[in-house]
């Protein structure tokens, strides 16, 4: 045997390609139906930070606190990804500011909470007061 005949290979590839394309089509037509593209689309995560971005410094270090724990050490994952997602989406929206987790000594501190009613508790826990709220209290600027 010096090789597989092209026609034999073509039949096999046709079968595998049909299965692969069918899987892709299922995903786009059934799992995430394309006709619901615009009415079921989630807002971009960065929209949450548009207002606060306007009042933060353009660059530099800004402290970051939250009511959700962040997986901040390799090998030690928190039970869910909420806190990590909140931090990462804030960092993505606010770059080139560097958000420093747990740092409460910077001039302003960003609070980013899952539950707005926990905001005051988070601020007090770090010896800070809430200066300004955004997004219904889910995002806030804190100061000493």
């Amino acid at each position, binding site marked *: 045997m010096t090789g*597989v005949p092209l026609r034999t290979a073509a039949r096999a590839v046709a079968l595998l390609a049909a299965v692969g394309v069918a899987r892709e089509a299922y995903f786009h037509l059934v799992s995430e139906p394309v006709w619901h*593209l615009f009415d079921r689309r989630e807002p971009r995560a960065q929209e949450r930070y548009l207002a606060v971005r306007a009042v933060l410094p353009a*660059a530099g270090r800004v402290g970051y606190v939250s009511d959700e724990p962040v997986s901040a050490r390799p090998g030690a994952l928190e039970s869910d990804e909420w806190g990590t997602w909140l931090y990462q989406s804030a960092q993505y929206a606010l770059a080139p500011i560097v958000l420093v987790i747990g740092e409460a000594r910077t001039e302003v501190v960003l609070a980013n909470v899952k539950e707005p009613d926990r905001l005051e508790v988070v601020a007090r826990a770090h010896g800070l007061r809430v200066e300004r709220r955004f997004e219904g209290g889910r995002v806030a600027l804190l100061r000493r």
Partner: protein
Amino acid sequence: MIAILAAAAVAISGGALSSFAPVRGAFRAALALLFGLGIWSVAYAVALFAFGADPRVRLAKDALLVVAGTVVLVRRPGRAPLAGDPGAPRSSSEVPRWPAYAVAAAAVLATAFFVEHTLRHPDGGWDAWAIWNLRARFLARGGDGFRAAFSPEILFWAHQDYPLLVPGAVAQAFLLARSESPWVPAAVSYAFAAAAVALLGAAARETRGAGWGALAALALLSTPCFVGFASNQQADVALGALLLAACALTAIALESGQARALLPAGFAASLAAWTKNEGALYLTCLAAALLATRWGPPRQRVRGLLRFGLGALPVLALVAWFKLRIAHESDLFGDASASRILDASRWGELLAAIPRRIVYFQDWGLWLVGEIAVLAILLPRLPRRPAARAMGMAIALALAVTMAVYVLQPHPLLWFFRASIDRVLIQLWPSALLATVLALAPQPGGRGSPSSGAGLDAAGASPSPQTRANDR
């Protein structure tokens, strides 16, 4: 005007670098796109770290790329002889036409899926916005404070140690467009994915004929997670495309005797190393396979390796500087422990997880099952072809080292494996498809074909054993 200069820098520098490869047509065009984007991003990083973020620095850098590329193109008119005549290894009646039509249909579908997914998730997948596009934003927005992108105070999930090929291209495009539209990184991702498909098809066609080229391209386009990863704007597709370029050029060198192709092969592999950390591993594995595979006498293999290394050297120097001076901490090895690698239970856990991934229908359809069936059933009955063996050895070596990294790293093993193995596989998949075609397809014989030694004669080299050894 600045945007036109940047486009010219990509096109001309890519065209100049691809002129070192003894290929033509779609193969050369895809190489030119990959090399152009790659060198544009590499030059940006060098200029940024050396001279700062002033727009005039980028302008001068692009002008320099245009001038240098033009000089190379003018002074090298057709100096790289072609590897062979790929177009007519078979009579047209032997080659079924439907695969070419199927590729066109699959490309249209894949583009539609890409656009739909981009509209739904404009910032890309988690890794895209949390790592690649985040870094691009730091570079584009940071001005002279761009080094904040590598601050150790940013959460380690941003992987500050990752190299900058994709973020460098995206950041420059943000600055040129004066906009951070999500379509900018999406376009960059699409370009790499399209180049990967075109390059795979062209390389298979060049080495085995038109029918095989269409089948290879169709296989990649119909792999379910390929379009998904591309539309998620993750660097894995770019890495896969650059590794494929390195493998394809290596195959050309080994099968046609055109050792000069190893120079751009090394360059392509070094661009892969500037794309993701895994790229450095793949470069090392390909170099090791080049030396270990018996495609020529040992002295010729060493010379081939030197050419490969010479091609890789400039960008590898940048990678080394970046790792030593900017980004020397990695979450994978920061808390590495020998006890983990010797822990049999961790290896058992990993080995038990692998079969589940092979049949992971959502991402792979039946492609991995098919690949393994081919390897198990057909490969032992086929002639040993050096190019296929070299690529297969490189991929196997890369997978073996990757498995050791899984066992060594500090994250929960199964969680980390499930989160990352498909990305590792999609990086290797285009090259694995090419290696499979090279192993399965009969080598076209006759005058002018890559294996006939015609390319070798054209290059003025002495007949080398690899051309005769190809079918041993």
